[in-house]
């Protein structure tokens, strides 16, 4: 039953009483605007945290060693712990089913030289799996492979920025690079999302490094990628057990965090998850608060508006308006105003969140790509429309049932 005349009546009333309409709309628009911004900011925070951990694989674990800080089994504190190949193999053997990727790391610092260009760079000696643990992206050529390791080849994969530093625009692939006086073949060039430092690195086979630099079986660190099918809890348990087993194997006090530790992304993920949970909890509270304030605002204004219009209702009734037609008129007015105002608030909020200058400011506060899901805002708007409906209905019903003679006397 679309009644054009009724809508004409309502739009005239809204349009001719602009101040009143704008006033009632303002509260709603403001509430929705705040709501939009709030959710935008939180989604931005969440994006920032997701990004911050995007550099390395989400399921990575590092086994790191340093000096003992607790005496254990007659051994003194201050003892320097050294990981060896057999520790690496021990991990492989014991935990194969829980591990997706595994790589050793040896940290080196070498002078890299091509023709007249030379500089000092960090070089990591690793296994092929390291590519996936570090999310290394091959731009040209290839990464290290099993054959390189087996043959202890003198091959090197260099970062995009090393290539730029030493080769400029000229091709670098399959060129020979002087690494502290030893000639290596460049087999690959890579990029990495982790920032400039991650792209001023070079990778060589772990076996080559062990043979050429000390002829030992030392490794600096073991990097793991746990099976991504493990739950966060299972992954954390795995990390704790690995830590315990390795401390036991290396005669380290079970609580000596400094001597050997396993840094587990699962724990970080869990912390981030908890942090986001708390954040969303706060947002839900603040968001509902904003909405409730909006609802109270509309209700108050509607009560005021209806009081102001009591006489008009009296006149309308004296000339034949049924109470229901007055209630319908007021409720529809209220709903139209809240809908339009809600839409304006939403649009303004979305436009603001997309504004470049605001994004730049927000980025400094760890808020990245703020955005609101339309679903949430639609939900909020619907709540406000319902509120407008109720806020309009109750006082309108009361006003519509006032005896016309009383209503006419009102002023």
């Amino acid at each position: 039953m679309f009644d054009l005349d009724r809508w004409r009546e309502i739009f005239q009333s809204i349009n001719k009483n602009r101040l009143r309409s704008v006033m009632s709309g303002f509260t709603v628009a403001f509430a929705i605007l705040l709501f939009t911004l709030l959710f935008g900011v939180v989604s931005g925070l969440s994006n920032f945290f997701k990004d911050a951990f995007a550099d390395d694989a989400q399921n990575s674990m590092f086994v790191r060693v340093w000096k003992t800080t607790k005496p254990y089994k007659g051994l003194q504190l201050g003892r320097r712990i050294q990981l060896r190949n057999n520790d690496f193999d021990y991990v492989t053997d014991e935990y194969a089913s829980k591990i997706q990727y595994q790589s050793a790391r040896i940290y080196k610092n070498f002078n890299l030289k091509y023709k007249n260009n030379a500089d000092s760079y960090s070089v990591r000696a690793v296994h092929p799996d390291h590519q996936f643990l570090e999310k290394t992206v091959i731009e040209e050529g290839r990464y290290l492979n099993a054959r390189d390791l087996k043959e202890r080849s003198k091959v090197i994969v260099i970062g995009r920025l090393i290539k730029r530093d030493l080769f400029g625009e000229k091709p670098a692939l399959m060129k020979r690079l002087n690494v502290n006086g030893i000639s290596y073949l460049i087999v690959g060039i890579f990029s990495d999302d982790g920032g400039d430092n991650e792209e001023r690195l070079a990778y060589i086979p772990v076996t080559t490094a062990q043979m050429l630099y000390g002829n030992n079986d030392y490794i600096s660190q073991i990097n793991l990628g746990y099976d991504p099918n493990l739950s966060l809890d299972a992954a954390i348990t795995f990390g704790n057990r690995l830590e315990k087993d390795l401390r036991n194997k290396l005669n380290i006090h079970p609580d000596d965090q400094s001597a050997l530790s396993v840094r587990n992304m699962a724990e970080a993920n869990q912390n981030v998850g908890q942090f986001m949970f708390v954040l969303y909890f706060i947002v839900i509270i603040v968001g509902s608060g904003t909405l409730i304030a909006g609802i109270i605002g509309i209700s108050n204004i509607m009560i005021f508006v209806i009081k102001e219009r009591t006489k008009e209702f009296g006149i309308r009734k004296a000339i034949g308006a049924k109470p229901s037609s007055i209630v319908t008129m007021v409720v529809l007015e209220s709903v139209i105003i809240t809908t339009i105002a809600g839409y304006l608030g939403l649009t303004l909020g979305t436009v603001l969140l997309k504004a470049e200058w605001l994004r730049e400011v927000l980025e400094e506060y760890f808020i990245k790509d703020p955005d609101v899901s339309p679903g949430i805002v639609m939900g909020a708007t619907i709540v406000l429309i319902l509120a407008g409906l109720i806020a309009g209905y109750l006082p309108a019903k009361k006003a519509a049932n006032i005896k016309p003679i009383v209503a006419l006397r009102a002023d």
Partner: protein
Amino acid sequence: MIEIKKLHKSYPIGKDSLHVLKGIDLHIKEGEFVSIMGSSGSGKSTLLNIVGLLDVHDEGEYYLNGQLIKDMNEKKAAILRNKFLGFVFQSFNLISYKTALENVALPLYYKGMNRKERLKVALEYLEKVGLKEWANHLPNELSGGQKQRVAIARALVTKPKVVLADEPTGALDSTTTDSVMDLLKDINDEGMTVFVITHEEEVAEQTKRIVRLKDGVIISDEYTKAAKAV
């Protein structure tokens, strides 16, 4: 048209109640032109409001167009008002944000007439009260007399059986008073029942029957010279 028997009305005032109408008997036939006179507070408006279904009585019987008015809910009352009654108030009671034409057309909206038709009819009635040129003006751009004529056009536009006017000239000067009374006379000549409250003798004398009210009872009810002249 209007038949009232032993009508009583009291207003509650705190714990007490103020007995305003104390047994009114009144019979107004179709086509009559009646005025009610009486000092302020004698209950004139109360009576008119009850007749106009704007208020309800406590005791007695009231028949409008042969129908007993009893246990009226607001909806039924609204329909009857729209169908049978037209109101003219002392304070005009025009809707301020609507033009003269829209004010006159509003009762037809509640009757369910379409927009084009009701604007046409409303304009005819504005012409009848001599305000065709003012159709698109808002009430605050009109003089008191003009506003009252708009209100009369609005009261007439549904072709009611009875026009009820509560001191329609109370806020007007003597020349505009005359023009408003002339209008009411014309309406009555067309056969409409007109029921008007006034406390001005000159106004009452232009009607055909004067009912005098004092302290809630009718003290006299007689036809005027104007009636005898017809």
